[in-house]
């Protein structure tokens, strides 16, 4: 591998092509959305929860697509480029596990509370405390917004790196397109378009990575080049590559685990367990397929970041200095694909892969926001809200979440720092939420106290002593406080009482005399059990 001869930009890539690609993908998604709207959406329940009729394949595909954001597509290459295979290891292994860890909680809550729809609604009934549910609702809203922002940022990184489009313009353009098609069909649209996008991030991405490897001399040449970089770490490397570590082909580097691996792992677990995007799926997939869908999604997800992460090895082998890609690790994949002399069509396909990943996560986030706004905010503040009102708010939630996220991202934020900060904050809610689901002795004092104290104490520790100490402190404090509160104020919650929780949408349909108006008492009977 020779860096000087290989790193030539593909010339024909113009901004117009980039815009055309974004519009073309958006137009295709819109076509799906319009069919969905006409054939599958009649009520707010259909819009927000797909009528609880998502099957195994669409459940699996949509879970993979919402989980495969810019993180998995670009950060897998970035982490490999930064840390070698240990970076890929710490990025990938907890990523797939995070989806599968949801299985026990998802199955438990779906069977005990068949018409929950949102995790905040569960917390509301679990603790009968406005503060508890408000904290969870705010966390969900904040989390969804950040996910939209991160993926918008991902879109802007790839469009500016490959097509030299101003990142602000790319952000704005992407948001308008996604909001336009998401507006029709809600969750069904997100599920259908997301599942289609899994084809792009699996088969198409795999073909592209194989093509890229062939273009740079094959896996053997890359392997040897990385081994050479590892052997001559430090001053022996090209200027700008001095940060490259020694053990680039091993997975046991402790510094990788300490500097990002462990923090990311816990953050990823929190990102699924404490994320309405996933809980919305739990209550929207057919109940008998919930466990299988999450398992298949985790299993089939694994090859995606592994495949795309392989681009990072090429970055190391070619000794591409960080400054050459604009100082943003996430840009290594797009930069390589567009600078090794590949035909324009291959580069465009790669951009489509990233756009597909970004679009599907953003529309999934927008759909999740619709569920939070309708179930946890509008219906809670105004129980008499009609079907029509709820539907309007569901659609408005999609628009507003996109507009707010775009406005924030246009102010400019660092990609990697944003990801890690989001995960650290979500870590605070991880243990209290799990215990609220699985440990009947958890009470509202422990739940709220655990979250608040772990943030108040853990975040300064994180700032002073770093990611690892901060993450472990947050987990330890939140766990201890929940346990201590259970000892101080002993009480036992009867989980069977969750079966009596009413169906938000069925009640609204009954009030409005519209939709399919399913029988609430029948659902309360706990058919899922």
């Amino acid at each position, binding site marked *: 591998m020779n860096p000087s001869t290989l790193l030539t930009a593909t010339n024909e890539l113009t901004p117009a092509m980039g815009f055309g690609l974004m519009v073309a993908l958006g137009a295709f998604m819109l076509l799906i959305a319009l069919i969905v709207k006409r*054939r599958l959406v009649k009520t707010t329940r259909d819009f927000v929860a797909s009528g609880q*009729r998502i*099957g*195994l*394949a*669409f459940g*699996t*595909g949509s879970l*993979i697509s919402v989980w495969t954001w810019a993180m998995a597509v670009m950060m897998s290459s970035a982490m490999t480029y930064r840390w*070698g*295979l240990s970076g*890929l*290891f710490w990025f990938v*292994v907890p990523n*797939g596990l995070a989806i*599968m860890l949801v299985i*026990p909680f998802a*199955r438990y809550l*779906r069977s005990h509370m*068949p018409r929950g729809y949102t995790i905040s609604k569960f917390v509301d009934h679990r603790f009968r405390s406005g503060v508890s549910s408000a904290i969870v609702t705010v966390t969900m809203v904040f989390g969804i917004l950040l996910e939209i922002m991160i993926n918008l940022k991902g879109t802007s990184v790839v469009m500016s790196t490959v097509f030299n489009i101003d990142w602000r313009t790319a952000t704005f353009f992407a948001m308008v397109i996604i909001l336009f098609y998401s507006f029709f069909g809600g969750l069904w649209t997100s599920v259908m378009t997301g599942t*289609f996008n*899994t*084809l792009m991030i*699996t*088969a198409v*991405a*795999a*073909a592209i*990575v*194989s*093509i890229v*490897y*062939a*273009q740079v001399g*094959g896996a053997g040449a*890359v*392997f040897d080049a990385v081994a050479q970089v590892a052997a001559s770490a430090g001053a022996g490397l090209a200027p700008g590559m001095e940060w490259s570590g020694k053990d680039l*082909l*091993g*997975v046991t580097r402790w510094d990788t685990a300490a500097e990002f691996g462990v923090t990311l792992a816990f953050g990823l677990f929190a990102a699924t367990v404490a994320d309405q995007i996933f809980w919305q799926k739990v209550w929207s997939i*057919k*109940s*008998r397929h919930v*466990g*299988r869908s999450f*398992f298949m999604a*985790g*299993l*089939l*997800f*694994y*090859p*995606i970041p*592994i*495949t795309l992460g392989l681009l990072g090895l090429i970055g190391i082998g070619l000794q591409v200095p960080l400054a050459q890609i604009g100082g943003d690790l996430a840009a290594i994949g797009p930069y390589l694909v567009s600078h090794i002399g*590949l035909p324009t069509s291959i580069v465009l396909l790669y951009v489509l892969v990233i756009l597909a990943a970004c679009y599907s996560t953003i529309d999934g986030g927008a759909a999740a926001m619709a569920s939070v706004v309708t179930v946890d905010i509008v219906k809670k503040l105004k129980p008499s809200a009609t079907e029509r009102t709820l539907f309007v708010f569901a659609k408005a939630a999609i628009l507003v979440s996109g507009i707010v996220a775009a406005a924030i991202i246009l102010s400019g934020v660092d990609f990697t720092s944003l990801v890690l900060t989001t995960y650290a904050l979500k870590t605070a809610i991880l243990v209290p939420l799990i215990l609220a689901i699985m440990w009947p002795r958890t009470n509202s004092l422990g739940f709220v106290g655990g979250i608040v104290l772990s943030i108040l104490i853990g975040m300064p520790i994180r700032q002073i002593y770093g990611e690892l100490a901060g993450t472990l402190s947050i987990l330890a404090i939140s766990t201890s406080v929940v346990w201590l509160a259970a000892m101080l104020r002993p009480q036992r919650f009867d989980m069977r009482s969750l079966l009596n929780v009413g169906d938000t949408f069925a009640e609204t349909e009954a009030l409005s005399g519209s939709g399919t108006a399913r029988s609430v008492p*029948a659902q309360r009977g706990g*058919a*899922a*059990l």
Partner: protein
Amino acid sequence: MPAYLSGTALLAIVCAIGAAVLFLAGYVKGFSSSIDDFEASQDDERADTATGFAWPVCLAVIGAAVLIALLGISPAVVAAAPFLSIVSAAVIGLLFYIEPRLD
């Protein structure tokens, strides 16, 4: 033949096209089944009776970890890894056909 269309890449392209065909056929079938299901308008709250996820989850995690470790052992594994993504696409396509049998 250009360098980027040699050997493994060509095989990957052919396999990816095969997986895409399977995926799309399944997708269309799944889409129309969802519409039929919606028009039937019946609640389906059959319990999730699938059990025994612990071992498969452990095996999946260990498998992924071992695969990444093996990437650093041999370039052949590096060349083969993208084919697993193609398998993922094919399996999702197959799920559309398997799903009705699970009912």
